[in-house]
């Protein structure tokens, strides 16, 4: 058996995980819809939602209906989808590169997407162009990372992470250049606000865009779950076992880049989720990717919905997402590193 699967043990009672996880997901989602700065009772939220399926008496509060359906619902769903996508992307990337420190932000995809999106906002302002720009430059970033990392004979993980940090720094500098060149009155405030990361401008068209990206990007990655188990043995062994390593790697890279870039395009840069959630999922269900990827999706969705609800409800002013994801994510990550120290991860 591979050293990876043997060394990291899942918690006991893994069969309870899925019912529990789905239940928590539903609870958290509904709870998020009832929480907010505008007073709405949970029963009223339920009635408003149910009214869409079969007619019920919602009372005459148009305001409550619109707050639930136009402000909270798209936002919660967007957070759910983005969290799930980032969780899966993080897990897939960590397995692909066989490196626990890897995540969409460390590998430079997120800063790369930020540059493309900022450039698109400056040049056009069309939301579709922002998505396209974010995707293209996210892809460019990951290509650069692979080029740098393969400068030597083998791409070992340290080189990979270093290359990711360097490329990330490069694209962050390019983002600064874009903010320098942007028109101070119209383009710059839009770019800066977008970069901070927020779901506050969530609407159904952004939800559609992300859903499309997830469909195109994550579904193939999910389909390759078992093959990721084999890839964990190392590329040479996987190839020897008959796996077509090249196409698998490209599918995963392209798919994860698409969803990360799209989530950056609709919600700005969200750090830590892609890095921490896969570790949590691995603790709960083990390293078998057939369970790990869906578990990362569920946990990522739950995490980001909770974070976004905090950001929009704790104070009258909106807290940027990156503040809370960093405050929570960094200590959790350190804890996980301590727990997993010396077990399991062998970097070939």
């Amino acid at each position, binding site marked *: 058996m591979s050293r990876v699967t043997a060394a990291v043990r899942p918690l006991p009672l893994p069969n309870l995980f899925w019912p529990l996880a789905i239940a928590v997901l539903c609870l958290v989602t509904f709870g998020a819809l009832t929480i907010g700065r*505008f007073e709405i009772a949970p029963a009223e939220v339920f009635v408003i939602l149910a009214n869409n399926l079969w007619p019920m008496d919602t009372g005459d509060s148009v305001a409550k209906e619109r707050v639930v359906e*136009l402000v909270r619902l798209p936002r919660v769903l967007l957070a759910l989808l983005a969290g799930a996508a980032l969780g899966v992307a993080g897990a897939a990337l960590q397995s692909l590169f066989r490196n626990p420190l890897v995540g969409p932000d460390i590998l430079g995809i997120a800063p790369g997407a930020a540059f493309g999106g900022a450039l698109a906002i400056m040049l056009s302002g069309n939301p579709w162009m922002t998505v396209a720009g974010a995707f293209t430059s996210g892809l460019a970033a990951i290509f650069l990372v692979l080029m740098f990392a393969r400068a030597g004979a083998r791409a070992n993980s340290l080189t990979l992470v270093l290359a990711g940090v360097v490329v990330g720094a490069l694209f962050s500098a390019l983002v600064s250049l874009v903010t320098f060149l942007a*028109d101070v*009155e119209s383009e710059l405030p839009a770019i800066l606000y977008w970069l901070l990361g927020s779901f*506050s401008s969530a609407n159904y068209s952004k939800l559609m865009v992300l859903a499309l990206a997830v469909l195109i990007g994550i579904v193939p990655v999910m389909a390759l779950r078992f093959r990721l188990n084999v890839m964990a043995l190392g590329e040479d062994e996987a190839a020897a076992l008959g796996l077509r390593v090249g196409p698998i790697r490209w599918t995963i890279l392209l798919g994860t880049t698409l969803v990360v870039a799209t989530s950056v395009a609709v919600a700005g840069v969200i750090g830590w989720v892609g890095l921490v959630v896969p570790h949590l999922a691995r603790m709960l269900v083990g390293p078998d990717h057939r369970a790990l990827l869906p578990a990362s999706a569920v946990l990522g969705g739950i995490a980001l919905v909770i974070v976004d609800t905090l950001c929009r409800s704790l104070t009258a002013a909106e807290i940027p997402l990156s503040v809370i994801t960093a405050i929570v994510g960094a200590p959790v990550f350190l804890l996980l590193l301590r727990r997993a120290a010396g077990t399991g991860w062998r970097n070939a």
Partner: protein
Amino acid sequence: MQIQIQIQMTSILGAAVRRTVCVCTVLAVVLSARSALAADGVLPVRDQLGRLVALEQPAERIVTIPMPAAPMLIGLQQGVGSLAAMHPESRSAIRAGVLGELFPAALSLPTNVVGRGFMPNVEAVLATKPDLVIQWGNRGSDLIAPLEAAGLPVAAVQYGGEEDIREWLSLFGVLTGEQANAKRLIAARHEALERLAPLRRLPDAEKPRVLYLFRVLSGLQVAGGDTFNDFSIRSAGGRNAAADLQGFKPVNREQILAWNPEVILLNSFEPGLTPAHITDDPVLGLTAAAAAGRVYQMPIGGYRWDPPSHESPLAWLWLAARLHPERLDVDLSAQISAQLTAIYGEKLAPAMIARVLGPENAGQSGDSAAHE
């Protein structure tokens, strides 16, 4: 006191000593009079950072970098006067407001003297041959040091509230030799606040909840309790719905609906922003303000009325008329026209006043091309 001492001393001491004492006394009188006058507003004068501005005569060519400074100088001098160059945003505001029509010469002044973030382009500044530069003092010494290194006198000002604008006015008055106009403008502010005092004394229940939206199109941001917009709202007899926040903060639509303001004020500088952005929004359109049609865009007179400026008395009057229309029985057009004429010394055409106060008020400069 000094004269009594002198008489006693002449009766006691000899002639030579008397002569020395005379000279010393004269010197003392002159020096004490001089320091009293400097406090009164005579060059050389201290700027808002407490630095002595190296100017012996009123300036004849001034470069202004803070955005409200150029229109303020035009107001003090009732013409372009010694204004030699300004910030490109100042020119956008001048073009969008009435000063572009009253003083067309202002539109052809150079604006290339400033780079990104109020950083002075020293060579461009020197090319205009100024004898004074007005610059922000509370944004770091990097903005001032290059100018001083080039040998230019710099007067530094701070961004703040009502007290700061009064200091700006007296400082600029001394620097341009227009102390009388400066006093007049400061007195006008005092009079305006006094006139609106009855509105401030109303019980809270009769003061409408007002929300100023600092940004709308690139994310909703409101002005908190320590901003000048809060001061303006309170001066005009309103209550700031966002008073619990500090500075300019992002909020979501749900929070605005929860505050349910009775009046919404839109900023004057986002291009393309109109009240329809609020009234047509499915969530913001449900606020009391949108339902009653009380969504107003901050006007531009000679300069924008949102931030602290020399036209704040007009802004307060306009706002009070919007907040308490039944209590303030005033012909707003006539009043605004009269006050603008008093500031700038020029008669304003009715079309200009209509543009300042009208619903399709030119709050947006739309002049991104003004950045040259």
